[in-house]
């Protein structure tokens, strides 16, 4: 049984009941971070900030948005953009953050791949992170439906059709997902529910899991060095701050997190106010028309690489390749057979693999947007095959790697 004494201060009162001192230590001041890391380790905090911006702006959009096929478009473009004070601000922040969050996710992912931060006890960090990627993708897609513009409608049409499974002709499944033969009222309402409730709940749960997964193995460092956190933290607490290999999360690393966040926000708000078209596609400012497909339809940029893996093949092979691309990243910790947790630059063939994968995904992204004709088709096909090939050779080249 706990023993309570008369509180000496408000803080003490709470401390006896909620152990805030202990919580503060576990989460902040004695959550030890290696010193040997660079600004790429701040991307987690950048993502937290961006997610917060999405949440807050989303709350204000939710106050005026109407999930009805007759009024959705004007509730966004008239009510929110023209009538609501600062409605345009929430919409621009929401739209730009939804796009930029994927840029940061990709940087975060490739950082993890480069430094081998998915190995030796860090597998669950990677897996929970990839689940977050999937949840964010679903969140982005469902949100894209809501303004009910031309791109919303036709993206809804095309992506739900993927679930027909090519020759399987699972049209029943497609209709079940839509709740109608075409994207219509039922579809808009359920995607609205997914966007504002179910998927955000999943995302928040997964963020908790992602953080928890980080606790036991600790964050990786620039050299993949195994650090004795107990010994190093004792050294720090004994006063040898400079000599210890670790630092506190707060305020030590947090100060750097905030520095990176500050610089990131300059870039972010510049986009919000002065350069937003890339994130708010002009085509989606035409109201949905089920009888007219826009001349060029393409997903938002962050889906382009997987879209391009689907595109160059015939329906069935394309779908298989697409499904492969969706799940393969999750399996990375198990496909990488090397015993080394070191940066890619010191891992022989894997170094080439890393840069080839990065460049290949950028090529796929570019080709996914360009019209699928002529040379672009060919480049797209080669890049898609390269993507698959790279994953096939990964276990072999990593197996060959010598123990460092």
């Amino acid at each position, binding site marked *: 049984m706990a023993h309570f004494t008369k509180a000496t201060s408000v803080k003490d009162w709470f401390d006896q009941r909620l152990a805030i001192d202990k919580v*503060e230590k576990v989460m902040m001041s004695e959550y030890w971070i290696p010193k040997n890391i660079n600004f790429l380790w701040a991307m987690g905090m950048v993502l937290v900030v961006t997610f917060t911006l999405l949440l807050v702006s989303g709350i204000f959009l939710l106050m005026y948005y109407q999930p009805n096929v007759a009024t959705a478009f004007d509730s966004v473009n008239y*009510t929110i953009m023209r009538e609501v004070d*600062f409605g345009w601000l929430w919409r621009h922040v929401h739209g730009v953050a939804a796009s930029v969050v994927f840029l940061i996710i990709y940087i975060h992912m490739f950082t993890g791949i480069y430094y081998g931060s998915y190995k030796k006890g860090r597998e669950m960090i990677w897996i929970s992170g990839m689940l977050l990627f999937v949840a964010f993708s679903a969140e982005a897609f469902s949100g894209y439906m809501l303004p009910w513009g031309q791109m919303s409608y036709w993206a809804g049409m095309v992506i739900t059709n993927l679930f027909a499974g090519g020759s399987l002709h699972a049209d029943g499944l497609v209709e079940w997902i839509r709740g109608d033969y075409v994207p219509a009222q039922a579809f808009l309402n359920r995607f609205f529910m997914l966007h504002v409730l179910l998927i955000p709940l999943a995302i928040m749960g997964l963020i908790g899991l992602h953080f928890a997964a980080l606790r036991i193995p600790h964050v990786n460092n620039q050299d993949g060095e195994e650090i004795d956190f107990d010994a190093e933290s004792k050294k720090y607490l004994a006063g040898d701050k400079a000599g210890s290999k670790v630092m*506190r999360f707060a305020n030590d690393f947090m100060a750097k997190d905030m520095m990176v966040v500050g610089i990131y926000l300059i870039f972010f708000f510049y986009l919000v106010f002065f350069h937003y078209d890339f994130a708010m596609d002009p085509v989606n400012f035409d109201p949905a028309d089920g009888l007219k497909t826009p001349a060029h339809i393409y997903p938002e940029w962050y889906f382009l690489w997987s879209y391009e893996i689907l595109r160059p093949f015939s329906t069935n092979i394309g779908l298989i390749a697409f499904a492969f691309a969706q799940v393969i990243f999750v399996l990375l910790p198990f496909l990488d057979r090397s015993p080394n947790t070191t940066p890619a630059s010191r891992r022989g063939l894997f170094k080439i693999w890393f840069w080839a994968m990065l460049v290949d995904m950028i090529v796929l992204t570019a080709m996914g947007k360009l019209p699928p004709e002529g040379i672009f088709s060919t480049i797209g096909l080669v890049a898609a095959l390269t993507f698959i090939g790279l994953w096939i050779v990964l276990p072999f080249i990593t197996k060959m790697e010598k123990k460092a």
Partner: protein
Amino acid sequence: MKNNSRRGFMGKAFGAVAGIGAIGSLYAMKKSWDPLPSVKAAGFTTLNMDDYKENELVTEKWRGKPIFVLKQTKEMMEKAKANPKDMDRLIQIGDSHFMVCVGLCTHLGCIPGYNPAEESFLCACHGGMYDFTAEVTKAPPPRGLDIPPFKIDGNKLVLGEEGPEYKKMLEAGITLKV
């Protein structure tokens, strides 16, 4: 916290700057909750006062609230003249006098019913009563029905605009601001 308290001056300064940003965004958030311009623009209702018959209660709508309009009969006018407090509550347009009030009981906001035979209002919720000028005659309502801001424009009455007659009533304490 104790071994980590050397946040130092810059930490506090940074916290202050971040706080200013938070307050700035709170301002935008507050503004987003304000009624929309279209809602405010719809806050005016024009009544044509020739349309009403004596001792026949008509309920109009202004800013989503019921508005009682009751054209006074000669007998009512005589009774009202005997009681200056009643007289002050009436709006004169041409030769006619009107009772124009927000039809929500000043007690807890129910809509009182009118009984033309008795020329009085009864609020079914808690038994409050009002006379034909909507002055309170029986508690619990603390005061007569409130008069909406109005402006006389010939034989028309514009609800939502504050004319001189309304301002006078407000100053005299005949009604509270709605």
